[in-house]
């Protein structure tokens, strides 16, 4: 925790980057990921199953952004909002209806979708954020159900007669649409994933990030130091809705449809499982969780009916046995295995894990971090 009062006015760059090395990303890791991700579809498409793999990767990029933004609200700032899928649907429906029924250019409606979603999130957030804990769960679930009801029974343009929107125009990639629809969609989703992930990473490291870490760790102290709880929470709510809405819009245009089944409880649970199993409150957790869950879904396809059972048991056992998720566990295991001088970046992140169990060594990380500014 650097100085908590930096939230109010001090800009980021005034903090000496040498004193806070975790503020700069690991460029080698990032650039090798970039090169790998850029080449991947070109390699994959040469194989028979490659088309499906690319489709799976696009799905991964979009859902992992949803999981990451929800994690920002749920895990990092501890607002038990269950409205994230509803916001995803707002984005999808907005751009879907405008481009399909009103003949808007899909790019234009897609660009407006995140803004509309953010406004919707602020409307939901204003009453929700004045409440705490369980009350927020109920209020946001109420919004979820109200929206489901509206898109099912609402005007025909929106409900599609109960079947949702079918035949939403796909994005027009102009000269690049030559090969197939898949490749440009892949690069678009990749670009979106990179921008969203970087923004979320930036929020984690920014004064706002420091402020919500402070709020979570010691609410009384943070408020005493002049952090405006309500404003910070509302900002996070809107910020996470922005990317969620955009992901919803992209998904709708990519699949060419969106239906009421997005509101099913199982979808909500799936994304929740991504966050919890991956590691809730940590930066990398939701990404790992999304990869794991999508992989699990494909891998267990033969088990069909048992899949949900396995998912439920996995969710419960992770919550009971490793409440901070697999990401911190994996990182600790990896570090113990290598047993080299610990990396500063990882060290700092560990202190940010919401449910970090003081027993499993994370106390060390937290101590090291709070020692930095003092």
């Amino acid at each position, binding site marked *: 925790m650097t100085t908590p009062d930096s939230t109010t006015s001090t800009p980021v760059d005034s903090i000496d980057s040498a004193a806070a090395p975790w503020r700069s990303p690991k460029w080698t890791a990032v650039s090798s990921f970039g090169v790998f991700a850029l080449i991947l579809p070109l390699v994959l498409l040469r194989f028979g199953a490659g088309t499906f793999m690319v489709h799976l990767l696009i799905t991964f990029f979009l859902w992992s952004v949803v999981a990451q933004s929800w994690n920002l609200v749920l895990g990092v700032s501890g607002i038990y909002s269950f409205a994230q899928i509803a916001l995803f649907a707002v984005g999808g429906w907005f751009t879907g209806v405008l481009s399909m029924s009103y003949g808007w250019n899909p790019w234009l409606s897609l660009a407006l979708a995140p803004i509309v979603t953010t406004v919707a999130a602020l409307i939901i957030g204003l009453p929700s954020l004045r409440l705490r804990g369980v009350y927020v769960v109920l209020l946001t679930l109420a919004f979820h159900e109200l929206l489901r009801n509206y898109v099912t029974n609402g005007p025909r343009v929106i409900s599609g007669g109960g079947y949702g929107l079918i035949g939403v125009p796909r994005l027009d990639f102009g000269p690049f649409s030559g090969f197939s629809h898949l490749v440009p969609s892949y690069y678009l989703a990749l670009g979106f994933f990179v921008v969203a992930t970087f923004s979320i990473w930036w929020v984690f490291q920014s004064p706002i990030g420091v402020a919500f870490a402070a709020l979570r760790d010691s609410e009384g102290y943070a408020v005493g130091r002049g952090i405006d709880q309500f404003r910070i929470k509302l900002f996070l709510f809107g910020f996470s809705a922005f990317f969620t809405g955009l992901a919803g819009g992209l998904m709708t245009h990519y699949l060419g449809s969106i239906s009421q089944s997005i509101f099913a409880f199982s979808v909500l649970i799936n994304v929740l499982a991504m966050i919890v199993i991956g590691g809730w409150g940590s930066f990398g957790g939701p990404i790992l969780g999304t990869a794991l869950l999508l992989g699990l879904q494909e891998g267990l396809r033969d088990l069909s009916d048992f899949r949900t059972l396995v998912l439920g048991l996995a969710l*419960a056992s992770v919550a009971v046995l490793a409440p901070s998720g697999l990401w911190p566990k994996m990182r600790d295991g990896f570090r113990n295995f290598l047993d080299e001088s610990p990396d500063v970046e990882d060290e700092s992140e560990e202190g940010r894990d919401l*449910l970090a169990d003081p027993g499993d060594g994370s106390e060390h990380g937290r101590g090291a971090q709070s020692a930095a500014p003092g």
Partner: protein
Amino acid sequence: MSELLQASWGGVLAGSVYGLMAIGLTLIWGAVRLLNLAHGALYVAGAYAAWTVINIGLPLAVGIPVAVLAAGILGYGMHVTVIRPMLGRPGWDSASIIATVGVAIALQAATLLVFGPRVKQIPAVIPGSTVVSSVRISYQGLVIVLVAVVSLVALFLYLRSSRQGMAIRAISQHMDAAALMGVPVHRTYALVMIISAGLAGLAGVLLSSVLFLSPTSGFTPMIIALLVTIFGGLGSVKGTIVAAYLIGILESSVQVYLGGAWALPVLFLFIIFMLIVRPSGLFGVPEAQRL
């Protein structure tokens, strides 16, 4: 006039069952500070247990206690596997909600695997109905109201005067103090889980003889029970019972006057309004908010 009577009868019927569901939720919340999102799954489990008993030819009168027992055993199982290992650990608030969601999914998937997706119905105890000033009242409805009211009154007396009931209340008021006075905390938690799950199972059998039964049919009653608990004030038994009947009557009036599709949306709008105006519910003590 007959519409008004119709609405009130429907409200009393629905309110009785919601009361059973919601009391379970509020008891767990009061004692353990746990929002049990597996409550709907326990409801379904109870109903399926009764259905199995009826299916092999035994009467519903046997099915009802079996349902309560089956759900109670599951509740005890939850206590042993989920609640006891997690209690008192950091992050209890969020981890426990997630864990109960996991249990709910697993239970729902298990019922789907065992019983299949086809909807089932539990037969009425006494078939037939009577007409009281143009309102049709089924005998089954009367049985439901009777069983629910008797159980609620019994529970109320149990909580007020029995030794275990006092232990439960002591723990909800102040866990540490209760533990220091020699109240067996873990045993009482287990007891609360069993009672609460058993009530969910009872609600499951009763409501499934009016509605249909499928592996996912516990979700809506659970959401309404949540609305009821929050409306009544989390942790308040008296508030929950009052709120259950008010919500039941509200729901059934909306169904009578506006049509069935409006019932849930109106309830949700009502609760959103309620949470904004009076977040602690009817009889709830406002949460200590020092910040």
